[in-house]
């Protein structure tokens, strides 16, 4: 079998890094979306959802421009490190974070806002600060949403193609992910290799999602009643 293990390792590394960062970034953003009463909240919601509808090439193009040496951000990074962000692993991470942002924020925000407001009111009347309410009530009750969000980000990053191609190019060991490797194999008419890699990716992603949804079954949801027996 001619599976490109290097590409696999790189892809998993990228997916893990992006999942961890988006988990941390996604929580406060989702909290704000779920509970803010600002009038312009809808603008932020639309912005967060944008990567779902945009072609990855459009997103990748603008990220590439933003990271390149002509943009202020690119110049700043270059003066700091001596090289541009484009065609590096870090650049790939940044692009993937933007690309997968809605897959973290939307499930998080949905599970935050589905929590009964009475529980939050009760927490406040018992003297809890908003942060305590968040960590002791909102987070524990949102575990299924958090797991779903993290899993979606992971799987989505595992399989992304367009953004990676635009930002990362195709540098073995640095930016050549599994999906790009498969593309290369197909271009070179190595269908057997392409099939092996593709099948492995398919099985792997399926397993990850199976484990997540299996864990998420919430065995005793029914016993989580909060009020009097009706």
């Amino acid at each position: 079998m001619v599976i490109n293990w290097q590409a696999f390792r790189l892809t998993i590394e990228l997916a893990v890094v992006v999942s961890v960062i988006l988990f941390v970034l996604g929580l406060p953003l989702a909290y704000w979306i779920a509970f803010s009463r600002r009038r312009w909240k809808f603008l932020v919601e639309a912005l967060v959802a944008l990567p779902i509808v945009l072609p990855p090439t459009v997103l990748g193009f603008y990220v590439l421009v933003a990271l390149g040496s002509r943009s202020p951000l690119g110049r700043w990074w270059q003066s700091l490190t001596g090289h541009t962000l484009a065609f590096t692993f870090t650049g790939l991470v940044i692009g993937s974070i933007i690309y997968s942002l809605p897959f973290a924020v939307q499930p998080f925000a949905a599970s935050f806002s589905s929590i009964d407001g009475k529980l939050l009111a009760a927490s406040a009347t018992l003297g809890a600060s908003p942060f305590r309410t968040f960590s002791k009530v909102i987070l524990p009750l949102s575990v299924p949403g958090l797991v779903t969000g993290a899993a979606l980000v992971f799987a989505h990053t595992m399989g992304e193609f367009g953004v990676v191609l635009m930002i990362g190019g195709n540098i073995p060991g640095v930016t050549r992910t599994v999906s790009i490797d498969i593309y290369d194999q197909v271009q070179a008419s190595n269908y057997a290799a392409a099939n092996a890699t593709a099948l492995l990716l398919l099985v792997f992603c399926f397993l990850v999602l199976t484990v997540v949804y299996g864990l998420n079954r919430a065995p005793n949801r029914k016993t989580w009643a909060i009020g009097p027996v009706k």
Partner: protein
Amino acid sequence: MPTPAEPEPVNPTLTGRIRKTFSSTERSFTLDVEFDAAPGFTILFGSSGSGKTTILDCIAGLVAPDAGRIAVGKRVLFDSGLHVNTAVAKRAVGYVLQDLALFPHLTVEQNTEYGLAHLPRSVRWERAAAMLHEFRIADLRQRRPGEISGGERQRVALARALVTEPCVLLLDEPLAALDSPTKSKILDDLRRWNEAHGIPILYVTHAREELLALGERVLVMEEGCIVAQGTPHEVLGAPLQETVAQLAGFENIFDATVESVHQDRGTMTCRIMTCRITTGLPVGDAGSFVLLETPLIRAEVGSHLRVGIRAGDILLAIEKPVGLSARNVLAGRLVSLESRFMTILARVECGVEMEVHFTLAARDSLALAEGREVWLIIKTHSCHLMRR
């Protein structure tokens, strides 16, 4: 020798003046009340939508009034004039919400300790344990809310609110879903707790029996206003307003005119009018009308009143009874029978149409059916008079 500082009264009174308007496209609702609640139970009594829960939300700080002032003793929680609006978490107001809002992922013990986060672990544990013991739920401490009964959840919710030693306790229909024995046991425990602590307890309900069981003082709410206040007996025994009467469960309410006054016997005779009379149409039997003997109130002959009679206070007989102490015996005919929750709701035409309640067994043993001639027996003191 230094003179001791004048002690702040141990049990401050809750005082409130609240105005709050909710507007939507369909309707707008204005709450406009002024009240005070001394240590002990004060009951907010009224139908749903009358604004009882909004008052509690304002005191707890979950809803900000448009204008007014809320204070416990000298501690101001809200004052629109002074721009004071203490944060919910800093009010020290115990609030048991209508559906309890126990934290489903925490055990009974963790729920009870939730409001004590600022204390060291040992103190926290000790106080929670004492409170769980006092409310008889110590053996449930490792269970989650989903694994205990409704009455037990109620106790947990009370323990969780009271363990923080609040300066005021707000209870929103806390016992609505419980059966009477469970209810009265919980009320006993709560009353015993408050004998030691003596804080104002605002208790929202629309259940008559809770009113009579608890009532020291009642505020009757209607459409965002307090329409009556006093002891339960004052509020229910001599209802002045028809809204109160409907709340108090009078199925039969009639317009009446005072026919004669019997000062010596402490009674009056009132002529009952049906809706048909008031609309100017003659009653079935021309010239017949219903006279009722009622308790004496301060009213002159010819004055217009309303009479309320509970359907459950009316006795029904299939032969004309003799030798009764009840003063009102009316001949009538059963118009309809309807069975609801093991009770028969019957309508009897006796010059006016009255609703009468009795049991399934009574229906069967007396062979009551539509069209049957019956006699209605109503005690003088079952006729409650009110102004109109």
